[in-house]
């Protein structure tokens, strides 16, 4: 009896501890390997660098985690980020200050999220198909906004958001950490967070229990749009430009981080801490390989292999080899 109580307490502390331990292990192995292979890897400046460049995908991965836990999906995030980046460049180019540019960008992000949410929750369209369609449309919109041209951003105050440092810490890293703390709090300690897990685990039962499933899903897409706005602002401010074909691979990177962190695409499972660790695993891996000048194609192969390996370890620990189906 005592032992059971102890187990429960540990489980409560760790959440999906099995997945978290796997991803923590992967992160430690990476750090040790790269520290041995690359003399400049284990430096403060490099870890700041990792945080700075991981922030763009890291921020949107927070909300993608909640969307996935709720049993839904959004593969249009890359296109949403591109649209937001273009809007930021347009507003900044029209003379908007950094506050106006950021506000307009976030508003556009929320609007794009609302469009996804409308089709998925009001018209009850399949989330995967809907976001494939909006991925296309939003990308087209990104091109349309500037007639296909890249737009440079010269406002140094706006560029500070992505490139600046506060007390030696990259601003974008601070923004990412704040986002993770907020999302961790929401998912763990609010009714909304608990309901997200419930509707992901069993939407029918949640509905019968009185949860407004559609309304909650709509809110999640709004939040996801907002986070696309944050990532879009970070991207535009880091590159100093609005680029219509930017962020093309961010959907997959964000989903990879979420899955590495232990979330199930079927819903009901996953943690914000797991996603944070997942995105760090990917960022450290990419950074280490870049520092060692590993070829781009090898990088793709290795990142895919790490993803498969992590999921396999998790699945085996969960008894997948013993199951007949």
């Amino acid at each position, binding site marked *: 009896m005592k032992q059971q109580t102890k187990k429960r307490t540990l489980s409560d502390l760790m959440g999906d501890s099995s997945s978290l331990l796997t991803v923590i292990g992967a992160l430690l192995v990476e750090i040790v390997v790269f520290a041995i292979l690359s003399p400049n890897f284990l430096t403060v*400046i490099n870890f700041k*660098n990792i945080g700075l460049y991981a922030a763009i995908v890291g921020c949107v991965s927070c909300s993608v985690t909640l969307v996935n836990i709720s049993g839904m999906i959004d593969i249009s995030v890359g296109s949403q980020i591109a649209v937001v980046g273009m809007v930021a460049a347009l507003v900044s180019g029209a003379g908007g200050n950094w506050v106006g540019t950021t506000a307009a960008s976030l508003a556009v992000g929320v609007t794009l999220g609302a469009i996804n949410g409308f089709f998925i929750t009001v018209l009850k369209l399949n989330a995967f198909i809907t976001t494939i369609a909006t991925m296309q449309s939003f990308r087209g919109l990104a091109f349309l906004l500037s007639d296909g041209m*890249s737009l440079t951003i010269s406002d140094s105050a706006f560029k500070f958001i992505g490139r600046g440092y506060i007390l030696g810490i990259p601003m974008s890293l601070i923004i990412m950490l704040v986002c993770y703390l907020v999302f961790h709090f929401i998912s763990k300690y609010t009714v909304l967070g608990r309901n997200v897990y419930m509707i992901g685990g069993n939407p029918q039962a949640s509905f019968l229990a009185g949860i407004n499933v559609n309304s909650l899903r709509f809110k999640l897409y709004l939040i996801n749009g907002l986070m696309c706005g944050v990532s879009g602002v970070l991207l535009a401010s880091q590159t100093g430009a609005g680029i219509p074909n930017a962020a093309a691979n961010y959907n997959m990177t964000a989903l990879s981080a979420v899955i590495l962190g232990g979330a199930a695409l079927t819903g009901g499972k996953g943690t914000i801490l797991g996603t944070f660790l997942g995105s760090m695993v990917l960022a450290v891996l990419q950074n280490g390989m870049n520092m060692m000048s590993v070829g781009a194609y090898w990088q793709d192969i290795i990142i895919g292999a790490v993803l498969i390996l992590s999921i396999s370890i998790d699945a085996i620990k969960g008894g997948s080899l013993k199951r007949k189906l």
Partner: protein
Amino acid sequence: MKKLIALLLTLLLLAGLAACAKPAAEQPAPAEQTTTTEQTTTTEQAPADETPTEEKKTVKLGLANINEKATFGKLVKMGFEDACAARGWELVYVDNNSDGAQAVQNAEILVQQGVDFIVDLNIDQSVAGTIVDIVSAANIPMVCVDIAMGDTPFFGVDSDKVGRMAGEYSVNWVNENWGGEVDYIVCFTAIASGDEVQKRARSAVEVMQNSDIKIGDTVEIEYQNDTAVAQQRFADFLTAHPDAHKIVCYGINEFAGTGAIAAGETAGRTDDFALFTCGVGSQFVEPLYEVQGNSPWKTAVAAFPELYGDQLCDIIENYFNGVPLEPLMPCKLVCVDWSNITEYYPLDDLPWKKLS
């Protein structure tokens, strides 16, 4: 409620379609007519019976553009429209949309439209043979632009030459500013664009390696034609090489340059590298004006896509006057830097600003 939503969506769709249609007000002056079909835009001169004596001089030119979504394609289109209008020619326009299958279909369309001459910008070399077969079967002369298509006369950027120009410029710069020494050469590649295009950076590396410059090491960074990727990978490179203060970077286009500059600015190491790229557009010119030339981006080799139309129409005009087409017809190339930027890209007359 359901009916109302269905009705609203239908109205939205119709409104969207109406908004996408070209408004009548945008049509050209009465002398010219523009008809837009699914894939073809035809700019027609005044009816032939009104100007019977000039009928022989009028050329019906078919242009299959590379991809109208990108600035490059827009500038090419604008240049051809202006050049044809100036000569009183009819331009039959199609967009290959960077798609081989579309390029084959477009070749058929241009043949069916009965054009006198075809200019083709096709990105997919695997369909080049098919396009050449279609056009030669119709006995229509053709020039391919920027990407070779078998034995078809070629006009445009000689990638090797562009790379060599950037290389020679950088060798002089390093000799003048870094005492003939370089810690690293970084070559930004985007392999998916094809081997030929990589020469715009790799030939520059070759020139530097064959010069008397003392070189530490050479590294290739694949940036997948994505500014953010270029930025991140170059930032990691800078972190991995904290003691490198003389880094020469070459890139095939502006995306690599913008990414490298952003990485250097974020890392506070803009003095540690010098950048030499190909292609001139807003990302090179506008920031250079902003910092009054005080940038690690030393030069970009301009190919002036907005002038392709004028240069090619001259060639076509000569062809119809009996001058045969050369197998290789290079376009105008210039190393643009702070010393000559006002000559080629004056701030008040930037070609991309004319695009609507």
